[in-house]
């Protein structure tokens, strides 16, 4: 796929990408990397069982290339990112404003009498991550929304370069802190693929346990925020209590409430401080309480009224964009890496088929999360009851990747996380993380049809994304 002149290489990449997406594969990301003098565009395509990387090399002095966004709509933010990072202009991009670099506020998208812009952020009105939503409104309806995420850009991808492989996982854990386990897993899957090592079975199962606990905590957090937005004080407190109990259980297992330090290249750092039977005994009452409270929440009509029909994403758009995680599932598009590209302990565990949802509204997204919580408890139960005798186990195998490149993935609570890692002589020479938050957040532009200002907190909470993961 390497052609010297810009146009043919990028045109070939575009054609290859559209051919793949037409076939049903999913566009999963587009990045540019400078290696020496040349800049290479790398596009990731998700297919059953694997993630492929298609590349186009730009000539050394390239200052522009024909934009892929007109053909692949989901590349919209990726190309803005490429422009910010390399200065190369994707010619023909519909709105090439800075994304992770500071820039002037975007010109107003809609114009007319009485229209004004309400800035939400970057310092938000609650305890929330910094980002800016510019809500263009005539007073109630929201005809257009702009987002600026550069406030939190920390340069995570650039920081990876030059790090030792064992240190990289520490940074991955802090790329999107509320999905520490998923990021650590995606990173480790990449370096384990380069090293060609197979992790021990016990470690594979415990990775599942931690990943699913993280999923439960994140989904409970969404329930807290939705209940809070609806003013349901008791429901807010109940779900906050459940979330706290999950975080305390995680800290009882490993010392960190976010599971940091658990996942290491080659397996896990150590076995949990609690025995499987103890964990199961603690989880059982929690599962029961979460499920009864969730049933009550999904039966509270004043709450459902706020969610039903709010922030709808059509199935067609979800499929076209390749919407990840609960957002995709709620709109009838499910590509769950645990099912289609299973890893760690997941192949050994029975996979739960995702429920069918088509509504694509905030309520459907909550229903998907409620199902995923139930499935997560089930997976943890299976992983732990099937747990082999500890005395015959090692937590990890040596993992020393020499030189190579691989893409690792994991299903975070927000959706699929990708890590494109290149290792040279045992050190990371390039690492490009891609969170589900980044891929999904752009869809917020499109879900305000018919919704009004007071729906905003519900829509934002129902997306359940992290600004840290989006801006990296």
């Amino acid at each position, binding site marked *: 796929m390497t052609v010297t002149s810009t146009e043919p290489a990028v045109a070939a990449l575009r054609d290859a990408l559209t051919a793949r997406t037409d076939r049903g594969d999913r566009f999963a990301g587009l990045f540019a990397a400078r290696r020496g003098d040349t800049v290479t565009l790398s596009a990731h395509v998700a297919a059953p069982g694997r993630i492929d990387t298609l590349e186009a090399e730009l000539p050394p002095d390239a200052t522009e290339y024909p934009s892929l966004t007109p053909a692949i709509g989901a590349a919209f933010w990726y190309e803005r990112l490429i422009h910010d990072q390399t200065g190369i202009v994707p010619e023909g991009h519909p709105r090439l404003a800075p994304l992770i670099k500071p820039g002037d506020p975007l010109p107003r998208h809609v114009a007319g009498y009485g229209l004004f812009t309400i800035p939400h952020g970057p*310092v938000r009105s609650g*305890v929330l991550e*910094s980002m800016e939503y510019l809500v263009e409104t005539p007073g109630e309806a929201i005809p257009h929304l702009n987002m600026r995420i550069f*406030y939190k850009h920390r340069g995570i991808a650039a920081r990876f370069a030059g790090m030792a492989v064992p240190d990289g996982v520490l940074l991955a854990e*802090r790329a999107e802190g509320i999905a520490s386990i998923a990021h650590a897993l995606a990173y480790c899957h990449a370096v384990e693929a380069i090293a060609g090592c197979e992790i021990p079975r016990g470690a594979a199962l415990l990775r599942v346990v931690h990943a699913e606990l993280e999923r439960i905590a994140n989904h409970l957090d969404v329930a807290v925020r939705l209940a809070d937005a609806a003013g349901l004080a008791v429901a807010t407190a109940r779900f*906050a209590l459940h979330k706290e109990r999950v975080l305390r259980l995680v800290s009882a297992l490993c010392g960190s409430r976010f599971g*940091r330090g658990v996942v290491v290249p080659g397996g896990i750092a150590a076995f949990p401080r609690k025995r499987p039977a103890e964990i199961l005994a603690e989880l059982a009452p929690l599962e029961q*309480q979460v499920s009864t409270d969730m049933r009550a929440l999904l039966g*509270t009509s004043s709450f459902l009224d706020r969610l039903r029909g709010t922030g709808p994403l059509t199935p067609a758009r979800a499929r076209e964009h390749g919407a990840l995680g609960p957002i995709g599932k709620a709109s009838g598009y499910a590509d769950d890496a645990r099912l289609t590209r299973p890893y760690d302990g997941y192949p050994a565990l029975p996979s739960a088929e995702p429920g069918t949802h088509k509504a694509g509204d905030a309520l459907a997204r909550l229903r998907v999360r409620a199902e995923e919580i139930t499935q997560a408890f089930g997976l943890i139960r299976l992983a732990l009851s099937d747990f082999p005798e500890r005395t015959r186990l090692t937590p990890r195998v040596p993992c020393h990747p020499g030189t190579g490149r691989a893409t690792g993935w994991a299903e975070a609570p927000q959706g699929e996380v990708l890590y494109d890692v290149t290792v040279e002589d045992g050190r990371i020479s390039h690492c490009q993380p891609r969170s589900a938050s980044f891929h999904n957040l752009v869809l917020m532009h499109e879900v305000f049809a018919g919704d009004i200002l007071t729906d905003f907190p519900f829509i934002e909470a129902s997306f359940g994304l992290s600004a840290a993961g989006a*801006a990296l």
Partner: protein
Amino acid sequence: MSIWALRGLRDGVVTTRWPRRADEYADAWRGPVTVIGDADAQDVDGLCPTGAIEVAGQVRVDQGKCILCGRCVAQRPDLFAWSAGATGPDAAALTREALVIPHIAETDEAVAGGRPPPGAARTAALRRSVHVRHVDAGSDGSEEWEIQALPGPVYDVHRLGVFFTASPRHADVLLVTGAGSPGMAGPLRTTYDGMPDPRVVIAVGTDAISGGLLGDRLTGVAGAVPVDVFVPGSPPSPFGILNALLIATGKLR
């Protein structure tokens, strides 16, 4: 709706009794690394991914840089150990230097000299009505979860007269998280400038104190706002943040 009234009674009181009584979870918390020995310390160079370990005559750990990865504790248990407990005067520091363990001599004297906590001296008049504003200056998102837990049922800071406010005009305390991303330097300063005196700034987490793993390019928030209380941790526990809030406002010494 009545169903929720009954559900609210289900678990009885789940709120911690701390600070009036000890809390088991807070006491069992695994805090940043501390130094327990001073044996042959030649081979600890490069052990710490953030460079928190200093070897200059004596081995010291800068807890403001410790991200709690535990690598040093695992490899040199004779030298390093986890500090225990999320609360108490040692779980938060009033100066950046006080985070370096063991303390350098003059810092020790200043602390031992009973110097009044500068933040607390300013905010003593606030008594049981402290309003808190949070600003994320480039966090990884986990610190926000721990701060969000504070008004929740388990920590319930309202019982201590601590409230969160949206407007910096109403705020007495500024909780700052994050490594200090360039994009947030301006908004952070604007928020601080919008607060009336007396005001106290708490840097929440290792990222906010030193930039943590990003420390080679982002160095925390102290350059943008004057920090009164430092809470190390990656992230610190809700108890650690609550402890710092009470120290900063003179409710706890």
